[in-house]
């Protein structure tokens, strides 16, 4: 039997260090996936996201960092309502997404968009770049005559630093970096206020990654966008983001109020130690973590990180720590560092 769905904790609302300026507010978000082993197997529940609450301040970059199984991709889809939550609320600019009708939600999508991880499959291979860039307007029922269409396509391509001639190409004729720029252009076509960036550079070469991050920075400043930046690369997140939410096995373990804040959760510490610097004079001492990231199906009671934590005590293994706020820094640990 899976654990009962959590009530939205009172503590969570104490998290609002940015509440009046929050573009997006997430409260007690939980998402379960059910699966069955074969036709007659036991039904198992995977709690991909568990009681996640935080705010996304307007005009800033909020990062979500974690490894596989932490639920960050599921969270991205819950935020944009590409998936429905099992519990919890997503409040976008004061509107609870749950309360919207299907058509109202479709209209609202103009304001919140996503850049996907895999540029290679994010565009229909049969479409030209021009058709792909005009699709947002088509879908939202915004009529453009052919002159306006040409203008829009040229504008979007220029915005992301691509040659206007590329409009007639098909995705397979473009490089990974170019495809990702088209993905970004498409996401910006309808002038959204909010962009979810789901590992936007993970499948690109290093020199191209840096190009794309530079482009995203520029666009954020020019268009006053709010970003939710999801990545497994802590170094990149610390560079790019103003606030960092650290996730482990579906839960928030720490919220760092600034990108240079010292980590207080042992897992964040381990992540930092595992993010190497391009500097041989600053080699990391890698903490010896025991074991592997456990399977999300077999969650033990207590702190999910206890099995691997070098500082775990009996209390850690039996009692799950709540996310508590210490000033503007939030951490879910019985024995936080410092």
């Amino acid at each position, binding site marked *: 039997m899976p654990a009962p769905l959590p009530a939205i904790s009172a503590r969570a609302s104490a998290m609002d260090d940015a509440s009046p300026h929050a573009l997006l507010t997430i409260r007690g978000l939980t998402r379960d996936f059910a699966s069955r082993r074969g036709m007659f197997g036991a039904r198992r529940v995977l709690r991909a996201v568990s009681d996640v609450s935080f705010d996304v301040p307007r005009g800033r970059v909020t990062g979500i960092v974690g490894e596989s199984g932490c639920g960050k991709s599921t969270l991205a889809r819950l935020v944009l309502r590409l998936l429905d939550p099992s519990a919890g609320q997503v409040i976008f600019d004061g509107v609870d997404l749950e309360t919207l009708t299907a058509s109202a939600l479709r209209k609202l999508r103009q304001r919140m968009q996503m850049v996907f991880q895999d540029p290679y499959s994010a565009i229909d291979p049969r479409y030209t770049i021009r058709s792909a860039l005009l699709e947002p307007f088509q879908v939202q029922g915004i009529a453009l005559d052919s002159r306006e269409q040409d203008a829009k396509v040229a504008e979007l391509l220029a915005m992301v630093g691509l040659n206007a001639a590329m409009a007639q190409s098909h995705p397979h004729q473009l490089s990974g970096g170019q495809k990702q720029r088209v993905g970004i252009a498409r996401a910006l076509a309808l002038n959204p206020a909010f962009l979810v960036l789901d590992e936007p550079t993970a499948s690109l070469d290093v*020199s*191209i990654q840096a190009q794309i991050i530079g482009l995203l920075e520029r666009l954020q400043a020019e268009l006053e966008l709010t970003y939710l930046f999801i990545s497994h690369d802590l170094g990149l997140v610390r560079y790019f983001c103003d606030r960092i939410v650290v996730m482990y096995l579906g839960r928030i373990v720490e919220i760092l109020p600034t990108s240079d804040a010292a980590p207080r959760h042992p897992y964040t510490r381990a*992540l930092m130690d595992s993010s190497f*610097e391009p500097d041989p004079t600053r080699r990391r001492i890698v903490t010896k973590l025991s074991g*592997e990231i456990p399977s999300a199906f077999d969650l033990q009671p207590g702190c999910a990180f206890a099995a691997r934590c070098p500082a775990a005590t009996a209390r850690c293994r039996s009692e799950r720590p709540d996310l508590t706020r210490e000033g503007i820094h939030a951490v879910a640990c019985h024995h936080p560092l410092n």
Partner: protein
Amino acid sequence: MALLTVQDLSISIGRLAPLDSISFAVDAGEILGIVGESGSGKSLTAMAVMGLLPLIGGEIESGTIRFDGVDLTSLDEAAYRRLRGRRIALITQNPMTSLDPLMRVGAQIDQVSRLHLGLTADAAMRRSVDLMQQLRIPEAKTIHGQYPHQMSGGMKQRIVIAMALAADPQLIIADEPTTALDVTIQAQIIQIMVELVRERGLALILITHDMSVVAQACDRVVVLYAGRVAESNAVDAIFAHPRHPYTRELIRCIPREGQAPGSLKGIPGLVPSVTAYPSGCRFHPRCGDAQARCARDAPTLEDTDAGAVACHFSPGVGDG
């Protein structure tokens, strides 16, 4: 004399020439990093050393590969087979495909020592369990009897490393061994590999796209770009004073601790594909310091005490 010396190696696959005059060396007890982006030819280098080019329809056009005094390019397949797995081991990127899904992992490690060292089944099993414990695999005896699908990616990669070590090789080539793994697991595996090299006096060639991994783990570095060596040097020197514009810019592509926002630039242009390498210096379309000469003449690799670099304007390049 270095354990492995590759000199002016050029390979061809059909009408393509994905590697051009590659030179580097690695000694026992040393970790050499071969770093490059896609299309740089780094994986092909590994395959060339292992004699696996025929598998992909490639062949060595020119150059030598000297391993422990023997020129590998002159070996026939039978001789190569005695070398592979026994004295030179290869660890590839994807542990999912390196392991036979129908065989228990322990048996797969046993196989190596039985084949190359002639051990009996029991002796091989004891050796495998011992290796697994050294690689910090918990409950090694139990894991020995499990199948690949029962374990995580990180665990599988440790099994693959155990297989590489089982025959007591002199040289291990690890081709992006941690790219498919989570960050914390990657750090553990890199750490294990570094410790193994130090303890056993092995030579390790670590092939990666990630300069941070190279900074963390390697003693010497070779930077490949579009099938050629751009620069090679000791790790401290190459990071402190990169002499090739590509090396310098590549290092700058990785955000450092405390780096100011807006300062990450990237390298303009596209990573070249093997079907359309630029003329002259292959980096010239993306190089901020490029001159007319760079589009015409390919720079040769100048080898000095301060490392090797292939750039027309090298003495001026490299401001740290």
